[in-house]
Protein backbone atom coordinates (compact mmCIF):
# COMPACT_ATOMS: atom_id res chain seq x y z
CA UNK A 1 0.00 0.00 0.00
CA UNK A 2 2.71 2.37 1.06
CA UNK A 3 4.71 1.51 -2.04
CA UNK A 4 1.79 2.28 -4.28
CA UNK A 5 1.42 5.62 -2.53
CA UNK A 6 5.11 6.40 -3.04
CA UNK A 7 4.89 5.32 -6.67
CA UNK A 8 1.97 7.68 -7.21
CA UNK A 9 3.80 10.50 -5.49
CA UNK A 10 6.93 9.79 -7.54
CA UNK A 11 4.92 9.97 -10.73
CA UNK A 12 3.48 13.29 -9.63
CA UNK A 13 6.98 14.61 -8.89
CA UNK A 14 8.36 13.49 -12.26
CA UNK A 15 5.43 14.75 -14.30
CA UNK A 16 6.11 18.52 -14.50
CA UNK A 17 9.67 18.12 -15.82
CA UNK A 18 8.67 15.45 -18.33
CA UNK A 19 5.60 17.30 -19.57
CA UNK A 20 7.48 20.60 -19.90
CA UNK A 21 10.35 19.01 -21.83
CA UNK A 22 7.94 17.05 -23.99
CA UNK A 23 6.04 20.19 -24.97
CA UNK A 24 9.31 22.07 -25.49
CA UNK A 25 10.56 19.33 -27.79
CA UNK A 26 7.48 18.50 -29.78
CA UNK A 27 5.46 21.71 -30.27
CA UNK A 28 8.08 23.98 -31.86
CA UNK A 29 9.40 21.11 -33.96
CA UNK A 30 5.94 20.38 -35.38
CA UNK A 31 5.49 24.08 -36.08
CA UNK A 32 8.83 24.18 -37.92
CA UNK A 33 7.77 21.19 -39.97
CA UNK A 34 4.45 22.88 -40.83
CA UNK A 35 6.05 26.21 -41.78
CA UNK A 36 8.60 24.44 -43.95
CA UNK A 37 5.81 23.59 -46.39
CA UNK A 38 4.50 27.16 -46.63
CA UNK A 39 5.34 30.11 -48.83
CA UNK A 40 5.51 32.52 -45.94
CA UNK A 41 7.49 35.74 -45.84
CA UNK A 42 7.13 38.17 -42.94
CA UNK A 43 7.46 41.09 -45.35
CA UNK A 44 4.40 39.83 -47.19
CA UNK A 45 2.34 37.84 -44.69
CA UNK A 46 -0.90 38.17 -46.66
CA UNK A 47 0.51 36.07 -49.50
CA UNK A 48 0.98 32.90 -47.45
CA UNK A 49 0.26 29.74 -49.43
CA UNK A 50 1.05 26.03 -49.51
CA UNK A 51 4.47 25.42 -51.01
CA UNK A 52 4.89 21.66 -50.98
CA UNK A 53 8.56 20.74 -51.25
CA UNK A 54 9.54 24.05 -52.82
CA UNK A 55 11.38 25.39 -49.75
CA UNK A 56 13.46 22.23 -49.50
CA UNK A 57 14.28 22.31 -53.18
CA UNK A 58 15.17 25.97 -52.97
CA UNK A 59 17.37 25.41 -49.93
CA UNK A 60 19.03 22.37 -51.43
CA UNK A 61 19.83 23.96 -54.79
CA UNK A 62 21.14 27.16 -53.22
CA UNK A 63 24.94 27.07 -53.64
CA UNK A 64 25.23 28.68 -50.20
CA UNK A 65 23.62 25.57 -48.71
CA UNK A 66 26.34 23.13 -49.75
CA UNK A 67 28.99 25.62 -48.76
CA UNK A 68 27.41 26.05 -45.34
CA UNK A 69 27.28 22.27 -44.81
CA UNK A 70 30.94 22.03 -45.77
CA UNK A 71 31.81 24.92 -43.42
CA UNK A 72 29.81 23.33 -40.60
CA UNK A 73 31.76 20.08 -40.93
CA UNK A 74 35.14 21.81 -41.24
CA UNK A 75 34.36 23.93 -38.20
CA UNK A 76 33.31 20.97 -36.07
CA UNK A 77 36.18 18.71 -37.17
CA UNK A 78 38.80 21.45 -36.96
CA UNK A 79 37.84 22.44 -33.44
CA UNK A 80 37.54 18.80 -32.33
CA UNK A 81 41.01 18.03 -33.66
CA UNK A 82 42.68 21.00 -31.96
CA UNK A 83 40.86 20.58 -28.65
CA UNK A 84 41.32 16.81 -28.33
CA UNK A 85 44.99 16.74 -29.33
CA UNK A 86 45.78 19.94 -27.42
CA UNK A 87 43.68 18.81 -24.48
CA UNK A 88 45.55 15.51 -24.15
CA UNK A 89 48.91 17.32 -24.28
CA UNK A 90 47.97 20.01 -21.77
CA UNK A 91 46.28 17.53 -19.43
CA UNK A 92 49.46 15.42 -19.33
CA UNK A 93 51.54 18.55 -18.75
CA UNK A 94 49.38 19.77 -15.85
CA UNK A 95 49.32 16.29 -14.34
CA UNK A 96 53.14 16.31 -14.00
CA UNK A 97 54.50 17.25 -10.58
CA UNK A 98 54.78 21.00 -11.07
CA UNK A 99 54.81 24.06 -8.83
CA UNK A 100 51.62 26.10 -8.74
CA UNK A 101 49.42 23.38 -10.25
CA UNK A 102 46.25 24.98 -8.87
CA UNK A 103 46.95 28.33 -10.51
CA UNK A 104 47.99 26.74 -13.81
CA UNK A 105 44.72 24.84 -13.81
CA UNK A 106 42.69 27.99 -13.17
CA UNK A 107 44.49 29.90 -15.94
CA UNK A 108 43.93 27.08 -18.43
CA UNK A 109 40.20 26.64 -17.78
CA UNK A 110 39.39 30.36 -17.74
CA UNK A 111 38.50 30.80 -21.45
CA UNK A 112 35.56 28.43 -20.96
CA UNK A 113 33.82 31.00 -18.78
CA UNK A 114 34.13 33.79 -21.33
CA UNK A 115 30.80 34.29 -23.11
CA UNK A 116 30.98 33.72 -26.90
CA UNK A 117 30.47 37.35 -28.04
CA UNK A 118 33.19 38.58 -25.69
CA UNK A 119 35.60 35.83 -26.75
CA UNK A 120 35.02 36.63 -30.41
CA UNK A 121 35.39 40.40 -29.95
CA UNK A 122 38.57 40.03 -27.89
CA UNK A 123 40.14 37.91 -30.63
CA UNK A 124 38.82 40.08 -33.43
CA UNK A 125 40.06 43.38 -32.04
CA UNK A 126 42.84 42.72 -29.57
CA UNK A 127 44.54 39.68 -31.09
CA UNK A 128 43.80 39.32 -34.80
CA UNK A 129 43.20 42.91 -35.91
CA UNK A 130 45.46 43.58 -38.92
CA UNK A 131 46.77 46.91 -37.60
CA UNK A 132 46.16 47.02 -33.83
CA UNK A 133 46.12 43.32 -32.87
CA UNK A 134 48.86 41.59 -30.92
CA UNK A 135 49.53 39.19 -33.81
CA UNK A 136 50.13 42.17 -36.09
CA UNK A 137 52.61 43.57 -33.54
CA UNK A 138 54.36 40.20 -33.44
CA UNK A 139 54.49 40.06 -37.25
CA UNK A 140 55.91 43.57 -37.44
CA UNK A 141 58.49 42.71 -34.79
CA UNK A 142 59.77 39.96 -37.08
CA UNK A 143 59.52 42.24 -40.09
CA UNK A 144 56.68 40.24 -41.65
CA UNK A 145 53.49 41.47 -43.25
CA UNK A 146 50.57 41.35 -40.75
CA UNK A 147 47.81 38.92 -41.72
CA UNK A 148 44.28 40.23 -42.23
CA UNK A 149 42.84 37.17 -40.54
CA UNK A 150 39.10 37.58 -41.11
CA UNK A 151 39.46 38.66 -44.74
CA UNK A 152 42.05 36.08 -45.77
CA UNK A 153 41.28 33.11 -43.53
CA UNK A 154 37.74 33.67 -42.20
CA UNK A 155 36.87 30.08 -41.35
CA UNK A 156 40.31 29.30 -39.90
CA UNK A 157 40.07 32.38 -37.69
CA UNK A 158 36.71 31.27 -36.34
CA UNK A 159 38.05 27.74 -35.77
CA UNK A 160 40.92 29.22 -33.74
CA UNK A 161 38.57 31.32 -31.60
CA UNK A 162 36.16 28.46 -30.94
CA UNK A 163 39.05 26.07 -30.25
CA UNK A 164 40.36 28.54 -27.67
CA UNK A 165 36.96 28.51 -25.98
CA UNK A 166 36.64 24.72 -25.91
CA UNK A 167 40.25 23.70 -25.22
CA UNK A 168 39.69 24.23 -21.45
CA UNK A 169 36.67 21.93 -21.47
CA UNK A 170 38.58 19.12 -23.20
CA UNK A 171 41.62 19.67 -20.97
CA UNK A 172 39.60 19.64 -17.76
CA UNK A 173 37.74 16.44 -18.61
CA UNK A 174 40.84 14.64 -19.88
CA UNK A 175 42.75 15.80 -16.79
CA UNK A 176 40.00 14.41 -14.54
CA UNK A 177 40.27 11.10 -16.37
CA UNK A 178 44.07 11.15 -16.20
CA UNK A 179 44.05 11.72 -12.45
CA UNK A 180 42.05 8.54 -11.92
CA UNK A 181 44.77 6.50 -13.65
CA UNK A 182 46.31 3.90 -11.39
CA UNK A 183 49.76 5.26 -10.50
CA UNK A 184 51.00 1.84 -9.37
CA UNK A 185 50.37 0.47 -12.83
CA UNK A 186 52.35 3.34 -14.36
CA UNK A 187 55.21 2.84 -11.92
CA UNK A 188 55.26 -0.89 -12.63
CA UNK A 189 55.47 -0.20 -16.36
CA UNK A 190 58.25 2.29 -15.75
CA UNK A 191 60.19 -0.20 -13.61
CA UNK A 192 59.84 -2.81 -16.32
CA UNK A 193 61.51 -0.35 -18.65
CA UNK A 194 58.55 0.58 -20.84
CA UNK A 195 59.53 3.77 -22.66
CA UNK A 196 57.40 6.92 -22.29
CA UNK A 197 55.71 6.65 -25.66
CA UNK A 198 54.57 3.07 -25.16
CA UNK A 199 53.34 3.89 -21.64
CA UNK A 200 51.28 6.65 -23.28
CA UNK A 201 50.06 4.43 -26.11
CA UNK A 202 49.17 1.32 -24.11
CA UNK A 203 48.26 2.69 -20.67
CA UNK A 204 47.30 6.36 -20.77
CA UNK A 205 45.41 6.52 -24.04
CA UNK A 206 43.18 3.46 -23.45
CA UNK A 207 42.42 4.78 -19.97
CA UNK A 208 41.34 8.13 -21.44
CA UNK A 209 39.29 6.59 -24.27
CA UNK A 210 35.99 7.04 -22.48
CA UNK A 211 36.73 10.66 -21.59
CA UNK A 212 37.80 11.42 -25.17
CA UNK A 213 34.54 9.93 -26.38
CA UNK A 214 32.56 12.11 -24.01
CA UNK A 215 34.50 15.20 -25.09
CA UNK A 216 33.82 14.51 -28.77
CA UNK A 217 30.12 13.82 -28.23
CA UNK A 218 29.40 16.86 -26.08
CA UNK A 219 31.50 19.28 -28.07
CA UNK A 220 29.89 18.18 -31.34
CA UNK A 221 26.45 19.05 -29.96
CA UNK A 222 27.61 22.55 -29.07
CA UNK A 223 29.84 23.07 -32.12
CA UNK A 224 27.00 22.40 -34.58
CA UNK A 225 25.27 25.45 -33.14
CA UNK A 226 28.14 27.97 -33.31
CA UNK A 227 26.53 31.34 -33.95
CA UNK A 228 27.63 34.35 -31.90
CA UNK A 229 31.30 33.95 -32.84
CA UNK A 230 30.39 34.23 -36.53
CA UNK A 231 27.94 37.08 -36.00
CA UNK A 232 30.42 39.42 -34.32
CA UNK A 233 33.49 38.60 -36.41
CA UNK A 234 32.82 37.89 -40.10
CA UNK A 235 29.01 37.99 -40.22
CA UNK A 236 29.28 34.85 -42.34
CA UNK A 237 31.46 36.41 -45.02
CA UNK A 238 33.25 37.21 -47.17
CA UNK A 239 30.45 35.82 -49.36
CA UNK A 240 29.45 32.65 -47.57
CA UNK A 241 33.03 31.65 -46.72
CA UNK A 242 32.37 31.44 -42.97
CA UNK A 243 28.63 30.74 -42.94
CA UNK A 244 27.66 27.52 -41.20
CA UNK A 245 24.21 25.95 -41.32
CA UNK A 246 23.07 27.69 -38.14
CA UNK A 247 24.11 31.05 -39.53
CA UNK A 248 22.52 30.39 -42.92
CA UNK A 249 19.17 29.64 -41.29
CA UNK A 250 19.47 32.71 -39.09
CA UNK A 251 20.02 34.80 -42.24
CA UNK A 252 16.98 33.33 -43.96
CA UNK A 253 14.73 33.89 -40.95
CA UNK A 254 15.93 37.22 -39.59
CA UNK A 255 17.45 39.05 -42.53
CA UNK A 256 15.35 37.74 -45.44
CA UNK A 257 12.19 37.20 -43.33
CA UNK A 258 11.75 33.93 -45.24
CA UNK A 259 9.88 31.87 -42.64
CA UNK A 260 9.25 28.91 -44.96
CA UNK A 261 12.85 28.69 -46.15
CA UNK A 262 14.29 29.05 -42.66
CA UNK A 263 11.94 26.34 -41.38
CA UNK A 264 13.03 23.97 -44.16
CA UNK A 265 16.64 24.73 -43.21
CA UNK A 266 15.79 24.00 -39.59
CA UNK A 267 14.42 20.57 -40.48
CA UNK A 268 17.58 19.87 -42.48
CA UNK A 269 19.64 20.92 -39.42
CA UNK A 270 17.68 18.47 -37.25
CA UNK A 271 18.31 15.67 -39.74
CA UNK A 272 22.01 16.53 -39.94
CA UNK A 273 22.32 16.65 -36.14
CA UNK A 274 20.60 13.28 -35.85
CA UNK A 275 22.70 11.66 -38.55
CA UNK A 276 25.84 12.89 -36.82
CA UNK A 277 24.53 11.80 -33.41
CA UNK A 278 23.71 8.29 -34.64
CA UNK A 279 26.99 8.04 -36.52
CA UNK A 280 28.96 9.22 -33.50
CA UNK A 281 27.09 7.00 -31.06
CA UNK A 282 27.76 4.00 -33.26
CA UNK A 283 31.38 4.85 -33.98
CA UNK A 284 32.30 5.54 -30.40
CA UNK A 285 29.41 3.89 -28.56
CA UNK A 286 31.49 0.94 -27.47
CA UNK A 287 33.42 3.24 -25.19
CA UNK A 288 30.28 4.24 -23.28
CA UNK A 289 29.20 1.81 -20.54
Amino acid sequence: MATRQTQGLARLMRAPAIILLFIWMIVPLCMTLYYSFLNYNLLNPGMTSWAGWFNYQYFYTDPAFLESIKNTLILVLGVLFITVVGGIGIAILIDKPIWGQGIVRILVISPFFVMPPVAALIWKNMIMHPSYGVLADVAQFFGAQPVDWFAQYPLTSIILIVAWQWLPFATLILLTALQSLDTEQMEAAEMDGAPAHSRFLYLVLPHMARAITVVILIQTIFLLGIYAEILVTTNGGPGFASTNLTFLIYRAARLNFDIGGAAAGGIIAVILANVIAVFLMRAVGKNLD
Partner: protein
Amino acid sequence: MARATSRNAKIGWTAAAWFVALLIFFPILYTIITSLKTEQEAIAGFDLIPSLTLESYQTVQSQNNYWRPFTNSVILAVGSTILALIVAIPAAWAMAFSPTRRTKDILMWMLSTKMMPAVAVLVPIYLIFLRTGLMDTRIGLTVLLMLINLPIVVWMLYTYFREIPGEILEAARMDGATLRDEILYVLTPMAIPGIASTLLLNIILAWNEAFWTIQLTTTNAAPLSAFIASFSSPQGLFWAKLSAASTMAIAPILILGWFSQKQLVRGLTFGAVK
Protein backbone atom coordinates in the same frame (compact mmCIF):
# COMPACT_ATOMS: atom_id res chain seq x y z
CA MET B 1 72.03 12.34 -8.35
CA ALA B 2 68.55 10.97 -9.00
CA ARG B 3 67.08 13.67 -6.83
CA ALA B 4 68.85 16.42 -8.76
CA THR B 5 67.53 15.04 -12.04
CA SER B 6 63.98 14.92 -10.76
CA ARG B 7 64.31 18.46 -9.43
CA ASN B 8 65.54 19.63 -12.83
CA ALA B 9 62.71 17.76 -14.48
CA LYS B 10 60.27 19.48 -12.16
CA ILE B 11 61.67 22.89 -13.06
CA GLY B 12 61.40 22.04 -16.74
CA TRP B 13 57.82 20.77 -16.52
CA THR B 14 56.81 23.74 -14.37
CA ALA B 15 58.23 26.18 -16.90
CA ALA B 16 56.49 24.43 -19.78
CA ALA B 17 53.15 24.25 -17.97
CA TRP B 18 53.26 27.91 -16.93
CA PHE B 19 54.20 28.96 -20.46
CA VAL B 20 51.22 27.12 -21.96
CA ALA B 21 48.86 28.33 -19.23
CA LEU B 22 49.87 31.97 -19.67
CA LEU B 23 49.56 31.65 -23.44
CA ILE B 24 45.99 30.37 -23.09
CA PHE B 25 45.10 32.99 -20.49
CA PHE B 26 46.78 35.79 -22.43
CA PRO B 27 43.73 37.10 -24.35
CA ILE B 28 41.84 37.55 -21.07
CA LEU B 29 44.84 39.10 -19.34
CA TYR B 30 45.46 41.50 -22.22
CA THR B 31 41.79 42.52 -22.19
CA ILE B 32 41.99 43.38 -18.51
CA ILE B 33 45.21 45.33 -19.11
CA THR B 34 43.72 47.20 -22.07
CA SER B 35 40.64 48.11 -20.05
CA LEU B 36 42.94 50.07 -17.76
CA LYS B 37 44.47 52.06 -20.63
CA THR B 38 43.33 55.24 -22.34
CA GLU B 39 42.01 54.86 -25.91
CA GLN B 40 45.26 56.34 -27.29
CA GLU B 41 47.41 53.89 -25.34
CA ALA B 42 45.17 51.00 -26.36
CA ILE B 43 45.99 51.38 -30.06
CA ALA B 44 49.58 52.50 -29.57
CA GLY B 45 51.02 49.02 -30.02
CA PHE B 46 51.82 46.13 -27.73
CA ASP B 47 52.30 47.24 -24.14
CA LEU B 48 51.69 45.25 -20.98
CA ILE B 49 51.81 48.19 -18.59
CA PRO B 50 48.63 50.30 -18.53
CA SER B 51 48.29 53.76 -17.05
CA LEU B 52 45.70 52.28 -14.68
CA THR B 53 43.00 54.74 -15.62
CA LEU B 54 39.37 53.86 -14.90
CA GLU B 55 38.20 56.24 -17.63
CA SER B 56 36.86 53.47 -19.89
CA TYR B 57 34.84 51.89 -17.11
CA GLN B 58 33.22 55.23 -16.36
CA THR B 59 32.50 55.91 -20.03
CA VAL B 60 30.93 52.49 -20.57
CA GLN B 61 28.69 52.98 -17.56
CA SER B 62 27.59 56.49 -18.36
CA GLN B 63 27.29 56.23 -22.16
CA ASN B 64 26.00 52.74 -22.65
CA ASN B 65 23.92 52.39 -19.52
CA TYR B 66 25.82 49.28 -18.54
CA TRP B 67 23.75 48.50 -15.45
CA ARG B 68 20.61 47.60 -17.38
CA PRO B 69 22.15 44.65 -19.28
CA PHE B 70 24.02 43.67 -16.13
CA THR B 71 20.78 43.55 -14.12
CA ASN B 72 19.11 41.64 -16.95
CA SER B 73 21.92 39.08 -16.95
CA VAL B 74 21.56 38.55 -13.21
CA ILE B 75 17.77 38.24 -13.41
CA LEU B 76 17.86 35.88 -16.40
CA ALA B 77 20.64 33.65 -15.09
CA VAL B 78 19.42 33.39 -11.51
CA GLY B 79 15.72 33.38 -12.41
CA SER B 80 15.95 30.65 -15.04
CA THR B 81 18.14 28.53 -12.75
CA ILE B 82 15.75 28.76 -9.80
CA LEU B 83 12.77 27.96 -12.04
CA ALA B 84 14.65 24.94 -13.42
CA LEU B 85 15.50 23.76 -9.90
CA ILE B 86 11.86 24.03 -8.79
CA VAL B 87 10.82 21.72 -11.63
CA ALA B 88 13.89 19.47 -11.59
CA ILE B 89 14.40 18.75 -7.88
CA PRO B 90 11.15 16.75 -7.48
CA ALA B 91 11.75 14.95 -10.78
CA ALA B 92 15.37 14.01 -10.03
CA TRP B 93 14.36 13.08 -6.49
CA ALA B 94 11.65 10.70 -7.71
CA MET B 95 13.95 9.15 -10.30
CA ALA B 96 16.78 8.65 -7.81
CA PHE B 97 14.76 7.32 -4.86
CA SER B 98 11.91 5.43 -6.49
CA PRO B 99 13.23 4.44 -9.90
CA THR B 100 11.04 2.47 -12.28
CA ARG B 101 11.99 0.34 -15.24
CA ARG B 102 11.63 3.36 -17.49
CA THR B 103 13.75 5.80 -15.47
CA LYS B 104 16.89 5.16 -17.55
CA ASP B 105 14.91 5.65 -20.77
CA ILE B 106 13.42 8.90 -19.51
CA LEU B 107 16.88 10.21 -18.61
CA MET B 108 18.28 9.25 -22.02
CA TRP B 109 15.32 10.92 -23.69
CA MET B 110 15.94 14.11 -21.71
CA LEU B 111 19.57 14.01 -22.83
CA SER B 112 18.46 13.60 -26.44
CA THR B 113 16.43 16.82 -26.27
CA LYS B 114 19.77 18.62 -25.92
CA MET B 115 20.75 17.22 -29.32
CA MET B 116 18.09 19.28 -31.04
CA PRO B 117 19.78 22.27 -32.69
CA ALA B 118 18.46 25.59 -31.37
CA VAL B 119 18.25 26.97 -34.87
CA ALA B 120 15.69 24.27 -35.80
CA VAL B 121 13.11 25.93 -33.58
CA LEU B 122 14.19 29.51 -34.23
CA VAL B 123 11.26 30.19 -36.57
CA PRO B 124 8.41 29.04 -34.30
CA ILE B 125 9.93 30.47 -31.11
CA TYR B 126 10.57 33.79 -32.83
CA LEU B 127 6.99 33.93 -34.15
CA ILE B 128 5.49 32.89 -30.81
CA PHE B 129 7.47 35.59 -29.02
CA LEU B 130 6.47 38.14 -31.64
CA ARG B 131 2.76 37.37 -31.45
CA THR B 132 2.38 36.96 -27.71
CA GLY B 133 4.30 40.10 -26.86
CA LEU B 134 7.07 38.12 -25.16
CA MET B 135 9.68 39.63 -27.49
CA ASP B 136 12.32 41.55 -25.56
CA THR B 137 10.80 40.69 -22.17
CA ARG B 138 12.71 39.21 -19.24
CA ILE B 139 9.95 36.74 -18.39
CA GLY B 140 9.90 35.19 -21.88
CA LEU B 141 13.65 34.74 -22.00
CA THR B 142 13.80 33.43 -18.41
CA VAL B 143 11.31 30.67 -19.20
CA LEU B 144 13.13 29.82 -22.44
CA LEU B 145 16.53 29.56 -20.75
CA MET B 146 14.92 27.41 -18.07
CA LEU B 147 13.66 24.96 -20.70
CA ILE B 148 17.02 24.87 -22.47
CA ASN B 149 18.95 23.96 -19.34
CA LEU B 150 16.33 21.74 -17.70
CA PRO B 151 17.82 18.45 -19.03
CA ILE B 152 21.27 19.27 -17.63
CA VAL B 153 19.77 20.30 -14.29
CA VAL B 154 17.73 17.08 -13.97
CA TRP B 155 20.74 14.97 -14.90
CA MET B 156 23.12 16.69 -12.53
CA LEU B 157 20.71 16.52 -9.60
CA TYR B 158 19.98 12.88 -10.39
CA THR B 159 23.66 11.91 -10.25
CA TYR B 160 24.06 13.72 -6.92
CA PHE B 161 20.86 12.34 -5.37
CA ARG B 162 21.73 8.81 -6.38
CA GLU B 163 24.83 8.98 -4.22
CA ILE B 164 22.72 9.50 -1.09
CA PRO B 165 22.60 6.01 0.44
CA GLY B 166 19.10 4.54 0.66
CA GLU B 167 19.91 2.74 3.92
CA ILE B 168 19.88 6.08 5.68
CA LEU B 169 16.22 6.46 4.80
CA GLU B 170 15.44 3.00 6.07
CA ALA B 171 17.26 3.73 9.32
CA ALA B 172 15.31 6.96 9.76
CA ARG B 173 12.04 5.14 9.08
CA MET B 174 12.91 2.47 11.65
CA ASP B 175 13.43 5.24 14.16
CA GLY B 176 9.90 6.37 13.45
CA ALA B 177 10.61 9.33 11.18
CA THR B 178 7.63 10.49 9.13
CA LEU B 179 7.96 11.33 5.45
CA ARG B 180 8.17 15.00 6.43
CA ASP B 181 10.97 14.32 8.91
CA GLU B 182 12.77 12.22 6.34
CA ILE B 183 12.76 14.99 3.79
CA LEU B 184 13.44 17.82 6.20
CA TYR B 185 16.12 16.36 8.48
CA VAL B 186 17.69 13.49 6.57
CA LEU B 187 17.60 14.07 2.83
CA THR B 188 17.72 17.84 2.54
CA PRO B 189 21.01 18.32 4.40
CA MET B 190 22.59 15.60 2.28
CA ALA B 191 21.17 17.00 -0.95
CA ILE B 192 22.17 20.62 -0.44
CA PRO B 193 25.78 20.38 -1.72
CA GLY B 194 24.56 18.78 -4.97
CA ILE B 195 21.84 21.39 -5.41
CA ALA B 196 24.35 24.18 -4.79
CA SER B 197 26.74 22.84 -7.44
CA THR B 198 23.92 22.49 -9.93
CA LEU B 199 22.81 26.04 -9.19
CA LEU B 200 26.31 27.39 -9.74
CA LEU B 201 26.97 25.60 -13.02
CA ASN B 202 23.58 26.48 -14.42
CA ILE B 203 23.99 30.17 -13.61
CA ILE B 204 27.24 30.08 -15.58
CA LEU B 205 25.58 28.40 -18.58
CA ALA B 206 22.61 30.78 -18.56
CA TRP B 207 24.83 33.85 -18.14
CA ASN B 208 26.90 32.90 -21.20
CA GLU B 209 23.99 31.86 -23.47
CA ALA B 210 24.30 33.91 -26.64
CA PHE B 211 21.96 32.54 -29.32
CA TRP B 212 18.50 33.13 -27.90
CA THR B 213 19.48 36.25 -26.00
CA ILE B 214 20.60 37.87 -29.26
CA GLN B 215 17.55 36.62 -31.22
CA LEU B 216 14.86 37.54 -28.72
CA THR B 217 15.96 40.87 -27.24
CA THR B 218 16.65 44.38 -28.47
CA THR B 219 17.20 46.79 -25.60
CA ASN B 220 14.71 46.26 -22.81
CA ALA B 221 15.59 42.70 -21.77
CA ALA B 222 19.02 42.43 -23.42
CA PRO B 223 21.55 40.75 -21.08
CA LEU B 224 25.31 41.28 -21.31
CA SER B 225 25.80 38.67 -24.04
CA ALA B 226 23.46 40.57 -26.39
CA PHE B 227 24.78 43.96 -25.21
CA ILE B 228 28.40 43.03 -25.99
CA ALA B 229 27.44 41.55 -29.35
CA SER B 230 26.08 44.98 -30.30
CA PHE B 231 29.64 46.31 -29.98
CA SER B 232 30.56 44.39 -33.13
CA SER B 233 29.51 47.22 -35.42
CA PRO B 234 32.55 49.48 -35.54
CA GLN B 235 32.05 53.02 -34.24
CA GLY B 236 35.54 54.39 -34.43
CA LEU B 237 38.26 53.16 -32.15
CA PHE B 238 36.97 51.79 -28.91
CA TRP B 239 39.51 49.19 -27.79
CA ALA B 240 39.71 50.36 -24.16
CA LYS B 241 35.95 50.75 -23.81
CA LEU B 242 35.33 47.35 -25.39
CA SER B 243 37.86 45.84 -22.98
CA ALA B 244 36.21 47.49 -19.99
CA ALA B 245 32.76 46.27 -21.00
CA SER B 246 34.15 42.78 -21.67
CA THR B 247 35.99 42.63 -18.36
CA MET B 248 32.86 43.59 -16.45
CA ALA B 249 30.80 41.04 -18.37
CA ILE B 250 33.11 38.09 -17.69
CA ALA B 251 34.53 38.90 -14.24
CA PRO B 252 31.62 37.64 -12.10
CA ILE B 253 31.30 34.38 -14.01
CA LEU B 254 35.06 33.84 -14.19
CA ILE B 255 35.22 33.95 -10.40
CA LEU B 256 32.15 31.70 -9.99
CA GLY B 257 33.72 29.36 -12.54
CA TRP B 258 36.98 29.04 -10.63
CA PHE B 259 34.99 27.88 -7.63
CA SER B 260 32.97 25.35 -9.57
CA GLN B 261 35.60 23.70 -11.77
CA LYS B 262 35.11 20.27 -10.18
CA GLN B 263 31.33 20.33 -10.65
CA LEU B 264 31.80 21.57 -14.19
CA VAL B 265 33.19 18.23 -15.35
CA ARG B 266 30.38 16.31 -13.79
CA GLY B 267 27.60 18.63 -14.92
CA LEU B 268 28.67 19.00 -18.52
CA THR B 269 29.37 15.33 -19.05
CA PHE B 270 26.00 14.33 -17.56
CA GLY B 271 27.83 12.42 -14.85
CA ALA B 272 29.76 10.31 -17.36
CA VAL B 273 33.13 11.59 -16.10
CA LYS B 274 33.64 12.37 -12.41
